[in-house]
């Protein structure tokens, strides 16, 4: 990887992020009684999208919001403007990543990545109601109304009453698989806000993060925005690279990054397979794997170092397999490091769906070796790759797994995800190779995904199974009465 290319300055990036920050400051104080500084922030956001199809909608929304009279549609337009700006930041960063990684990049199957900035968002914002259940439309509207209340009170004005109003909305959404995406982000967001009440006494505010979550959720309440349309099916050999775990108090998702070698001999490509579930907040660590494991055989295959053979597996335009165990069977052993060394360099990267373009979505599989690992005085780890430092995000390594920051620090080769946050690139380790007693040993972050066999893992599995059985017993006795 050409790590030097990641250090280059990107023209316009600072300006785009400054407009995002200006809007994020607006949400801190809230839009109930906007002050002149907030009016200026709103104008800065509107000016930044002045050359896009969103321009007039956003200019009107900014004006109304500055007067303390923003409707829900106006707030959605502001969320769209912020999302469009971060979409352009995403695209600029991905251009840099593509050069640095040196792989081909796939076209988005719907082929609308080339649409000028804002057009796709504008169509989502302008879209009138598509056919959808009235019940679903109602709960989406309830979600939008809650988010609008949040924008009015601002992060400084948070209190238990405004936050707890989300509970009913989330409970109504969770059982509907079509609303799961929106429900899951609202649930995680609301839990953070609840833990941060009252907003008036917060020492610091995660302004970028909360504005991100607010804008994402706001757009997902618009009809048609949350879909991930299947654009075809794939048949061929799937070679897992590693497992990325994501979790908040009441949900978890595991994503397996893998190289797909199509049976028809067409070019290999990078794909992801995801499984997610809502969970009680006391189901943690190994309990999360126990919850997800039965629904995707690929987790076990990835843990065991096996490939899988797929037949007619649905896939979206951004390379997400919509996993179904019936369409996959266990294949031959496949060492992820061999996949990373041999198959990864020629595999095409997936494109990102227009609405999902955001720097936080960047998670590009990379293989690194021949680096120097160094810990600085605050214990932060850096790999020096071809003479250039790359931050190692060890905080993303799940606790329920055999990979540790120490193993990463002692490693000689690493499969990871290249990410970008708060102005810098970093690599999230998915697996490392280290030399132990003159033998190369591989350790995987998702090593326990399919089940644990080492002593620590077995103990964690037992504790998690006990916790889950207590909850199920309590639920059986108390819930269905």
């Amino acid at each position: 990887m050409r790590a030097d290319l990641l250090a280059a300055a990107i023209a316009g990036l600072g300006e785009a992020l400054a407009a995002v920050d200006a809007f994020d400051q607006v949400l801190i104080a809230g839009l109930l009684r906007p002050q002149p500084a907030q009016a200026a922030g709103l104008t800065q956001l509107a000016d930044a999208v002045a050359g896009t199809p969103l321009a007039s909608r956003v200019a009107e929304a900014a004006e109304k919001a500055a007067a303390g009279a923003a409707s829900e549609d106006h707030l959605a337009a502001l969320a769209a403007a912020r999302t469009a700006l971060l979409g352009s930041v995403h695209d600029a960063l991905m251009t840099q990543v593509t050069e640095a990684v040196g792989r081909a990049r796939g076209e988005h199957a719907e082929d609308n990545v080339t649409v000028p900035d804002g057009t796709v968002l504008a169509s989502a914002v302008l879209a009138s109601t598509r056919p959808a259940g009235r019940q679903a439309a109602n709960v989406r509207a309830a979600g939008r109304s809650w988010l609008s209340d949040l924008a009015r009170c601002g992060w400084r004005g948070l209190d238990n009453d405004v936050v707890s109003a989300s509970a009913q909305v989330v409970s109504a959404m969770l059982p509907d698989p079509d609303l799961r995406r929106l429900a899951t982000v609202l649930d995680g967001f609301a839990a953070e806000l609840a833990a941060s009440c009252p907003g008036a006494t917060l020492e610091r505010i995660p302004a970028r993060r909360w504005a991100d979550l607010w804008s994402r959720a706001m757009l997902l309440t618009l009809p048609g925005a949350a879909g991930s349309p299947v654009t075809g099916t794939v048949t061929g050999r799937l070679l897992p690279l590693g497992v990325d775990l994501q979790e908040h108090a009441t949900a978890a998702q595991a994503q397996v990054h893998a190289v797909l070698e199509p049976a028809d001999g067409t070019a290999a490509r990078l794909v992801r397979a995801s499984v997610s579930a809502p969970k009680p907040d006391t189901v943690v660590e190994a309990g999360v794997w126990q919850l997800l494991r039965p629904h995707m055989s690929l987790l076990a295959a990835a843990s065991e170092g096996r490939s899988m053979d797929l037949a007619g597996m649905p896939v979206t335009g951004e390379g997400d397999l919509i996993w179904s165990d019936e369409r996959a069977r266990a294949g031959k052993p496949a060492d992820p490091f061999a996949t990373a060394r041999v198959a990864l360099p020629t595999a095409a990267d997936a494109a990102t769906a227009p609405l999902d373009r955001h720097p936080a979505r960047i998670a590009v599989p990379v293989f690194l070796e021949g680096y120097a690992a160094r810990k600085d005085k605050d214990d932060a780890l850096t790999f020096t790759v071809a003479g250039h430092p790359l931050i190692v995000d060890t905080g993303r390594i799940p606790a329920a797994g055999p990979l540790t920051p120490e193993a990463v620090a002692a490693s000689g080769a690493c499969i990871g995800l290249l990410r970008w946050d708060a102005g810098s690139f970093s690599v999230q380790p998915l697996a490392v190779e280290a030399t132990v007693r003159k033998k190369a040993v591989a350790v995987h972050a998702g090593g326990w995904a399919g089940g644990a066999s080492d002593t620590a893992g077995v103990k964690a599995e037992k504790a998690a199974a006990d916790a889950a059985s207590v909850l199920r017993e309590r639920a059986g006795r108390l819930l269905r009465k």
Partner: protein
Amino acid sequence: LPDWEKSSTARVIPPARPRKLAKVPFVELADGRLQGVVSSGSDIERVYVSSVAAGTCTFACSTNNNRPCGGARGSFCNHILALINEAVLQYGAERTARYLRVEVADGAPSAQGIIAGMRAAHPPQGDATAAAPVFSRFLRHLAYLDLAPVTVPLPEMQWFPPTRAEA
């Protein structure tokens, strides 16, 4: 070090720590209270709904059938003590003490220190009005077990990376 306020993945809540759930299946810091559900030691069908308010330390304990807890007369019953202990296991003593706004005498906060600090404030006994909403929050929490996993991607989960507990 990356700027926390400009980070999309800033960690806001530390992850809950694993704990045994047999005695106290549910505990939360919510609605301005430490609240939860304690399983009865003698009757498998019965649970106690207990809570302590932040700041005033006003406490309440009753069964899920709205009978007052015999132990919670004028002072903390064993259910409330168990609740505080489990909250400290799940959330850590520091976060629990901060949420409850309890003055802890000396050194690092602990469950014992939090309990002593609350008792020193001579907490008043509250009525049982919180019991019904707390119990329904517990049932809502249990209902998450019944929700089916999905294999469609949830892109927004990228905003929720795991947080490795500090060593």
